[in-house]
């Protein structure tokens, strides 16, 4: 018994613990415990006052019993008494008992406040720390009320010991997180930031955590910490491995502090001050350089500590997303780790690369590692590593490698762990749809999914293939043929029967000319599967049969025979029986014309976000919070993947708002033919919510309504709000904007910098800044080829009235752009009055003799001239009411296209230019903003409100401004961003 022999503890306690350990059975243990409890109770109740030591010993025994999992219903008072002891060991046990048990007895807290107060005031650092640790461990609101005001004082007092400062900083952090309203901001906050300069590294380590938390809530008030953090980091990073003595861990100077500082910097955009930024970039480069140096120790601790800093550095580089050079270096470094012998590093490299794949600067660099990643998917032993590899393949997928990635994922699916099959199926389905160039490939892929992993192909997936086949007539014949062949396999998955039944019922006529798939053959093939299928599938097949009667009159007699059979007409299942009866009657009483009308081919489905994508998001977990949803693993928010590629969703184009109504209004005319397919498909977005309503009655939208004011009647204007008015055709000599122009423009509504356009030849980058009604924009034209561009002529064109609304001055650029070179063009922009259409940027040049021309929309939208305005709730409501004319308001209700993350939403709204007003909306989930659009001629005040509904994955956005077109335009611009 080594511990007993240490002899400094409580002998009685050690004996008791030994006894418990020696108990042979649970019963014996309980018996021993009960005996001890009786003993302790009698001691506590006894007439003799217990000395401090005994009290401590018994309280400690009680604590041990509690930790074994037994309830403790006495002893609390004795523990509280221990707090006022003058002896450390007694005080410590008292505090420990309270910290551990407080959950089950919060009344204790009130009893101990006095003791804590005394200890905080004791000037004895040991006692002060005990009290601070107790507050930090309990962290309840009552404690906040009692002590939140004292702790800042202790933290910044000149005479506080270092260890007390450390504890005070974290104690304050805990209270601030639990009840921010209780912690008074004040003079101390400025001094807290300066703790970053403290001589004691432990104080800095604790203080950084507090500062990071404060920065997140009040970024502007703590901006000064950026330069302090950078210089601290710089001193650590550049120090030799032994400089920091106590804080060097396996030859790595202050790894944890470095990581914390790097995370603090991730609360902010890149430093504005050029000197600070330069210093920081130097630090980041130093870390990347050090990764290439030979290790100073072979111990894994050394490399782990070093790489902890490296990965955090890479996170910061990705966060800034503005230094192409660093991004590419980061990617190369991770590339080395992909083949490292440490599983941890391979895992982390895959994970980190996933975020790099979504940066426009490093996407291409990530793609070069495709073979290694595919290999990881095949060979890694740890399923979580394979999963990261699958995530990364998904993130790096674009049109150029989609076929390879999809086929590898399909191959992997055959042997994949059951736990991740469904996710892989969803991902394959999404990629196949997004990057389908020819839809026969898409159909093949989905049918392969069903063949390989039929059990994991959820309804969303096979609904979606039906939707797409229905909407694209160029693929219907192929789909019918393929599905017919697939059904000939002796054992095919029931999902295949569903897809086959539906497609043949709609499009079987397209292959009926071939005698091998004549109508009777099609029917008997389907019917051969009938008896093995579930009720739902049989119901679907019955609908296929009635559709066959219309498509192929020659099958009528056979099918009527099937419907008439007792096994159908008298089926125990009501649904099947009803269908058999109704279809039989329909086929006998209706004339051919009526039949043809009722059983007509399904109309195209209204397009909206892929239901599969919604499913994948749900799978990632609704409660996952910002951490999971911040877009890291969800490439749906990924610019590269989601941006430029036209998706099949564009085949039909009802407006997004009409879509909502379409959901409810559209049991399609041929409803019986698509019972499980179409019906569910149309409502599945709401499957987490209330059941779908058959009529235009109350709808899931109601969830959006709150008490702010009675809902405005849904004016036709709001509902019909169509995508932005079509841009006026430009002057004769400028071609129409490229099809993606609107999408590219949308990417820049909430941000000012980035890559505006890129193709094989040319990359156009943008950097811009706006103040009041003025703006300056830098355009960078990069020649990606090795051949010189000639007659290079970028011009800005003002379509329509824009000339009177916006003045853009450009400078000419050199007419030649060398291979690999970049030229810069400066634009000075003045907003004269409100405008709706952006100017056009036309770029012409000759490449290898061939004229090239390209027209884009310049990312100048009215919101760039937004001036954020802070106002109190009262003012907001007053102004809101002043803008109550129906035409002053624009409203849009739309589906979330990205994970619904409050932090991201905030950032977007701020990027959009409005101020965010807290404590205005009674519902804290909602966002309220205000700003003024500054133009030379007039100012337009603007209020906005965004109400997310996480359950339905939808938003309602309301804009009110004094000018009707502005409201509508802003509303449309902003609605695209979520």
């Amino acid at each position, binding site marked *: 018994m080594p511990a007993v022999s240490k002899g400094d503890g409580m002998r009685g306690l050690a004996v008791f613990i030994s006894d418990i350990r020696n108990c042979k059975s649970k019963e014996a243990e309980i018996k021993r415990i009960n005996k001890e409890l009786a003993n302790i109770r009698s001691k506590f109740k006894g007439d003799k006052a217990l000395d401090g030591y005994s009290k401590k010993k018994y309280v400690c025994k009680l604590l041990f019993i509690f930790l074994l999992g037994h309830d403790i219903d006495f002893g609390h008072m004795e523990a509280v008494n221990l707090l006022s002891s003058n002896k450390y060991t007694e005080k410590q046990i008292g505090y420990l008992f309270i910290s551990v048990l407080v959950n089950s007895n919060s009344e204790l807290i009130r009893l101990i406040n006095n003791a804590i107060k005394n200890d905080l005031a004791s000037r004895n650092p040991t006692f002060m720390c005990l009290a601070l640790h107790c507050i930090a461990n309990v962290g309840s609101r009552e404690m906040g009320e009692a002590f939140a005001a004292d702790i800042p004082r202790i933290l910044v007092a000149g005479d506080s010991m270092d260890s007390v400062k450390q504890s005070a900083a974290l104690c304050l952090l805990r209270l601030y997180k639990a009840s921010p309203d209780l912690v008074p901001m004040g003079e101390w906050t400025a001094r807290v930031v300066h703790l970053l300069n403290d001589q004691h590294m432990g104080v800095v380590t604790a203080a950084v955590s507090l500062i990071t938390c404060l920065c997140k809530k009040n970024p502007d008030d703590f901006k000064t910490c950026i330069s302090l953090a950078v210089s601290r980091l710089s001193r650590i990073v550049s120090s030799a491995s032994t400089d920091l003595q106590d804080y060097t861990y396996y030859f790595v100077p202050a790894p944890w502090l470095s990581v914390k500082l790097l995370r603090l910097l991730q609360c902010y955009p890149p430093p504005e001050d050029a000197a600070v930024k330069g210093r920081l970039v130097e630090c980041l480069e130093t870390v990347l350089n050090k990764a290439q140096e030979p290790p100073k120790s072979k111990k894994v601790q050394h490399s782990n500590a070093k790489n902890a800093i490296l990965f955090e550095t890479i996170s910061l580089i990705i966060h800034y997303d503005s230094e192409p050079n660093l991004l590419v270096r980061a990617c190369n470094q991770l590339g080395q780790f992909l083949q490292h012998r440490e599983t941890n590093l391979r895992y982390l490299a895959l994970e980190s690369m996933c975020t790099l794949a979504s940066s426009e600067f490093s996407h291409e660099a990530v793609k070069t590692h495709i073979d290694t990643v595919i290999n990881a998917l095949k060979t890694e032993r740890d399923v979580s590593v394979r999963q990261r590899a699958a995530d990364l393949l998904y993130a790096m997928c674009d049109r150029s490698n989609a076929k390879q990635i999809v086929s590898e994922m399909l191959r992997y699916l055959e042997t994949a762990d059951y736990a991740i099959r469904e996710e892989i199926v969803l991902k394959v389905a999404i990629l196949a749809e997004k990057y389908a160039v020819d839809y026969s490939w898409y159909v093949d892929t989905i049918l392969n999914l069903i063949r390989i992993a039929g059990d994991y192909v959820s309804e969303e997936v096979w609904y979606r293939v039906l939707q797409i086949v229905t909407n694209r007539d160029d693929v219907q014949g192929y789909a019918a043929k393929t599905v017919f062949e697939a059904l000939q396999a002796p054992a095919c998955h029931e999902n295949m029967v569903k897809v086959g039944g539906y497609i043949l019922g709609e499009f079987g006529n397209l292959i009926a000319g071939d005698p091998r798939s004549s109508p009777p053959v099609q029917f008997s093939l389907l019917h051969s599967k009938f008896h093995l299928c579930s009720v739902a599938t049989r119901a679907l097949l019955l609908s296929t049969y009635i559709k066959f009667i219309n498509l192929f009159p020659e099958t009528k007699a056979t099918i009527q025979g099937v419907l008439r059979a007792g096994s159908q007409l008298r089926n125990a299942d009501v649904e099947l029986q009803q269908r058999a009866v109704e279809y039989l009657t329909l086929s006998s009483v209706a004339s051919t014309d009526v039949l043809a009308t009722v059983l007509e081919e399904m109309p195209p489905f209204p397009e909206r976000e892929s239901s599969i994508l919604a499913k994948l998001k749900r799978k990632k977990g609704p409660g996952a919070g910002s951490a999971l949803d*911040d877009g890291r693993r969800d490439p749906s928010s990924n610019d590269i993947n989601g941006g430029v590629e036209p998706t099949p969703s564009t085949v039909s184009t009802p407006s997004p708002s009409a879509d909502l109504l379409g959901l409810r209004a559209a049991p399609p005319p041929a409803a019986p033919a698509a019972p499980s397919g179409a019906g569910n498909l149309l409502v599945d977005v709401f499957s987490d919510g209330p059941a779908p309503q058959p009529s235009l009655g109350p709808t899931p939208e109601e969830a959006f309504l709150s008490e702010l004011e009675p809902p405005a009647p849904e004016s036709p204007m709001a509902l019909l709000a169509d995508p932005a008015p079509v841009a006026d055709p430009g002057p004769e000599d400028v071609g129409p904007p490229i099809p993606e122009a609107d999408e590219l423009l949308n990417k820049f509504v909430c941000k000012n910098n980035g890559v505006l356009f890129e193709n094989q030849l040319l990359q156009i980058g943008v950097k811009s800044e706006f103040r009041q009604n003025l703006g300056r924009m830098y355009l960078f034209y990069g020649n990606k080829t090795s051949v010189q561009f000639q007659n290079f002529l970028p011009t800005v064109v003002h379509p329509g009235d824009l000339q009177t609304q916006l003045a853009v001055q450009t400078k000419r650029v050199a007419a030649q752009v060398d291979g690999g070179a970049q030229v810069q063009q400066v634009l000075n922009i003045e907003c004269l009055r409100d405008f709706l259409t952006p100017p056009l940027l036309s770029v012409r040049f000759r490449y290898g003799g061939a004229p090239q021309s390209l027209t884009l929309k310049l990312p100048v939208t009215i919101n760039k001239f937004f001036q954020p305005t802070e106002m109190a709730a009262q003012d907001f409501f007053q102004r809101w009411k002043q803008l109550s004319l129906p035409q002053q308001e624009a409203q849009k209700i739309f589906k979330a296209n990205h994970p619904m993350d409050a932090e991201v939403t905030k950032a977007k709204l701020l990027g959009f230019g409005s101020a965010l007003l807290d404590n205005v909306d009674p519902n804290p989930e909602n966002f309220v903003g205000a700003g003024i659009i500054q133009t030379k001629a007039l100012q337009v005040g603007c209020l906005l409100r965004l109400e997310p509904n996480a359950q339905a994955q939808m938003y309602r956005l309301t804009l009110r401004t004094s000018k009707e077109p502005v409201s509508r335009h802003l509303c449309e611009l902003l609605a695209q961003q979520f």
Partner: protein
Amino acid sequence: MSRGKCCKGGEGLEIRFILIQNRAGKTRLAKWYMQFDDDEKQKLIEEVHAVVTVRDAKHTNFVEFRNFKIIYRRYAGLYFCICVDVNDNNLAYLEAIHNFVEVLNEYFHNVCELDLVFNFYKVYTVVDEMFLAGEIRETSQTKVLKQLLMLQSLE
């Protein structure tokens, strides 16, 4: 840039709980930095044990757990587990565990499982010196041990 990564780790470097368990699933330390009720704690303890003990040495030291992740390391028959947010720095916590274990080893002179059983009330003190409010408080082994020895000398 209005990227999702904007305010990374809404909660910062924050530990949700620290668990020390043996292979049989007996808890040797449970330190909670988030409010859970007693039943929930028991459930978490069992779940963590279930996900961690099935992994072998070739696996990573990280495992996704509910909406968080567990960073763990095995020392002889004991698993040291720290539960953090999914985007927290894995390696920093992995080494924080090791740093903690080295302190225990020094403090108890070749620590073994029984030391943690008989001195459970001291282990809490070690934890509070190194981790507080879910954050890393002190990383210098020298400083922590000096403080622990000072406390040890007090009555």
